[in-house]
């Protein structure tokens, strides 16, 4: 497991180096994701220990957003001052984005004739 955690860190590190030196508009970890994906294609399967490591990291992905979320306390004043435009923009824009993306994907998927998935 330690091997693969190291591999993940190496992918992220190389990703960070690539984004800073080449001034790529994508964050290092996303490039790291692409690198790890390439590694998996090269290997042709997912090693069990890598699967365990990723399950441990992704199993509680929500937890990792808590420290950044607590940063909301720094901006209570600004949020209060612009509450209506911010609140409305966040809610309406997020709902519309979800609707547009999902509807277009379903429509294009149907046109391509791929079978519809099963529901919740």
């Amino acid at each position, binding site marked *: 497991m330690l091997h693969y955690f190291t591999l993940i860190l190496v992918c992220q590190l190389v990703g960070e180096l690539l984004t800073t030196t080449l001034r790529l508009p994508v964050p290092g970890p996303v490039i790291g994701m692409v690198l790890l994906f390439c590694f998996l294609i090269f290997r042709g399967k997912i090693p069990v220990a890598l699967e365990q490591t990723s399950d441990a990291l992704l199993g509680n992905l929500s937890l*990792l957003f808590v420290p950044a979320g607590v940063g909301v306390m720094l901006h209570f004043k600004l949020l209060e001052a612009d509450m209506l435009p*911010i609140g409305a923009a*966040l809610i309406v824009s997020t709902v519309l984005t979800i609707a547009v993306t999902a509807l277009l994907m379903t429509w294009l998927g149907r046109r391509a004739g791929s079978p519809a998935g099963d529901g919740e």
Partner: protein
Amino acid sequence: MQDLRDIWVYLSASPLLHLTLTLVAYLVGNWIYRKGKMNPLLNPVLIAVTIVVACLLLTGTSYRDYFDGAQFVHFLLGPATVALAIPLYRQFEKVRRSGFAILASILAGSLTAMATAIGIGLLLGGSNDTLVSLAPKSVTAAVAMGISEQLGGLPSLTAVLVILTGILGAMLGPFVLNLLRIKDWSARGLALGTASHGIGTARALQVNDVAGAFAGLAMGLNALATAVLLPVLWYWIF
């Protein structure tokens, strides 16, 4: 009393206290979420953040002091993003089959997110600072903060708006998708990842493997699309 204060001074200076607070608050949030049969409205991030903020305000602790401890949890966001390659690889066949539909849908969603955020903010009289900070709200925090800074916004406000968008998407998304009768897991995941980045992806991963993989993919591609398109869109509007 003096002893108690000494203990408090000692504890609040080490990362242990705030790291523990973060984990305990999250466990409480997750417990409530599971008890509520994973109802999206009981979002565990929202509950945990509320608990932590309340504790910090009650004890008069600054965010900076809190983050000194909590940064160890925060750090793992990077490796977790890299690890999204694994669910993606599991769905590789499915992704390859609908490559065009995926790219087109994410692009449309990305443009919708930017245009509607700016449009609604402008319409309701948001300040210029607020508008720039608001525009990249659907993108993963690191990219959103970079774009916001580039366009003259407030990166730390953007970070907060990004998290709020993530929580809102994870809370409201499932209802919107049910209302629209979207049953395809790939479309559901793609929508959550495009609109609400990692927090949407976290929700998608909990519900379905296919949805999780597509959400992670959408998060990465939307970061790219927004980073390239938003500066163009912004200078075109203003």
